[in-house]
């Protein structure tokens, strides 16, 4: 089947800086794909390039098999929901939603029935005569969505459409956006810098940094098997401990850092490169994977011995800051009943499937910006 969107080698420069730097991306029809990354990573520029507002220097963009790289914006089979919604202030809700159909040359009666259909889809019946300034933020959001869906595009692009909403409304709209995507079967390409939002809504997440896609995959796969420490730190919280690989063999790896030694299954190397003894690497341990070891436990290959230097109660979980023997500080998140009585020297261990070893140039990618 032809992919709904296929981008090959796309590069877009502003001056000498590449905002999008050789991006390849293939999206099958009917998927909800999220471009996730910090501000300035090129995700919005990539979206604007697909819509035709940021002509690329090189590369191609195909939508449903058609090359639209050089097509003018108003003839592309894609529509955008803008971050500020960009509703036409002098047109009613019906005028806004019907605009795209009108441009396609639909008869007034057909436009009107499509508008009603869209209003029902976004659950705003009866508001067709209102003006944008008379609507709440959430309602404007829905109108913007309805307007973009009305002309029946192949691809719907959403540029951080929930960023302006407050937290509760945002959660609500996340569920609704996803439901509408399922119901319409449209391909959504969604841009956000909010990793929780990305995980909650997407079939696929493409994590972007510096104009490149660092990793793409289903949320759970990217979360569990990050390709590098940037992805590990951006998607969820991660403890990233620099280590050195000292032993390989029989499907296991041994890594050391000052004051600690860990042994883990070789398949937990998720960065793709095969480590050799002597390689520098980063050990990723998810805070929520750490659990206390029983006092009488045997030596554990992933045991973390540390001293509790801070304890924060967050209701459903307790966050501990642990200082490891080598001075590294890591974070552990435990259910309150398991954190009970923990203090001073503690002994915790993650599940082997919840750690990852990332072989890479340590230091370059270990920032935890989110």
């Amino acid at each position, binding site marked *: 089947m032809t992919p709904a969107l296929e981008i090959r080698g796309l590069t877009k420069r502003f001056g000498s800086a590449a905002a999008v730097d050789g991006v390849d991306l293939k999206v099958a029809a009917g998927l909800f794909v999220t471009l996730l990354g910090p501000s300035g990573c090129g995700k919005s520029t990539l979206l604007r390039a697909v*819509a*035709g*507002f940021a002509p690329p220097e090189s590369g191609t963009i195909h939508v449903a098999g058609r090359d639209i790289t050089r097509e*003018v*914006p*108003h*003839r*592309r089979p*894609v*529509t*955008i929901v*803008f971050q*500020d919604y*960009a*509703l*036409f*202030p*002098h047109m009613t809700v019906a005028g806004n939603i019907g*605009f*795209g159909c009108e*441009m*396609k040359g639909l008869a007034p009666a057909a436009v009107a029935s499509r508008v009603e259909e869209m209003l029902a889809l976004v659950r705003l019946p009866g508001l067709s005569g209102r*003006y944008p*300034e008379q609507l709440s933020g959430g309602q404007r959001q829905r109108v913007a969505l309805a*307007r*973009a869906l009305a*002309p029946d595009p192949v691809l719907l692009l959403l540029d951080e459409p929930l960023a302006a909403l407050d937290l509760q409304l945002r959660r609500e709209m996340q569920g609704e956006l996803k439901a509408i995507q399922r119901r319409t079967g449209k391909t959504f390409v969604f841009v956000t810098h909010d990793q929780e939002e990305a995980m909650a809504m997407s079939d696929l997440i493409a994590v972007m940094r510096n104009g490149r896609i660092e990793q793409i995959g289903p949320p759970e796969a990217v979360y569990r098997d990050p390709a590098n420490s940037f992805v590990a730190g951006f998607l969820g919280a991660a403890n990233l401990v620099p280590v050195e690989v000292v032993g390989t063999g029989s499907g296991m790896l041994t890594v050391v850092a000052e004051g600690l030694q860990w042994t883990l299954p070789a398949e937990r190397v998720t960065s793709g490169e095969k480590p050799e003894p002597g390689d520098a690497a980063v050990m990723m341990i998810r805070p929520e994977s750490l659990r206390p070891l029983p006092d009488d436990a045997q030596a554990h290959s992933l045991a973390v011995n540390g001293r509790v230097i801070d304890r924060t109660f967050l209701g459903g979980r307790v966050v501990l800051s642990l200082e490891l023997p080598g001075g590294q500080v890591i974070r552990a998140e435990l259910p309150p009943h398991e954190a009970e009585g923990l203090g001073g020297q503690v002994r915790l261990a993650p599940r082997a499937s919840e750690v990852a070893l990332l072989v890479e140039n340590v230091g370059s990618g270990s920032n935890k910006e989110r």
Partner: protein
Amino acid sequence: MRGGWALPLWFWLFVAYLFLPLVVMALMGFRDSNFVAFPIQTWTSRWYTGVLADGDMLAAIWLSARVALWSTLLSLAVGLPTGLLVARTCGALRALLIASVVLPAFLPVIVSSVALRMYLGVIGLEPGVAAISFGHAVGSVPFVVIMVLTRIEAMGPNLADAARNLGADDLIVFARITLPFLAPALIGAFLFCILLSFEDFARSFFLGGFEPTFPVLLFARLRFGFDPGLAAVSTLVLVVSVAVGLVAERYVRAKGLRP
């Protein structure tokens, strides 16, 4: 609100200073005498009704109205595209464009008038309606450009992009999005240009032919002394101008765009 009486008193004294002359003028139009003086012993409405029978005066007002309309249309025709052009430039070029467009507004009107009179002579345009209209447009275009520019900046780039994204070409974007968005500024600019042109004396005086515009005729009659008739016609013009000005002011400050 707390506060002393000194500031309010100062304010109202100044308001009185501003408006008392106008009140005196309006009242003087009712004086049953050929001379302007106080007190008013007998009252009459003959000066006000007399304006309607004053053929020269009506002709002058009609000429001023025509000049106002033509110069305003010309100002809009020049100012709207200029504003749109300035809006899409930035940096030094933008500063240069704005400076060159706004400069005429700061030129002494009398200097501008003399220069225009000479220039029109050079290009062979006779003094008259066309000449005055061109002259007035020179003075009005800066205001149109600034009003258009201010409004278009408030629009942001996404509205036009959204329309384009939904299938509108450049012409449709202009007609369906940009122009309606600019409408309040254009209506406001239209009314202000009308007022600017109607009240202008210097350019009309220098660029006019034998037919006087309203301010020029008023000036000519003043040289033969005041009579209550001048007070009456001035008051009538004042009332109309204030009404137009208030409407214009409302449009310029309009936030809402609904028709």
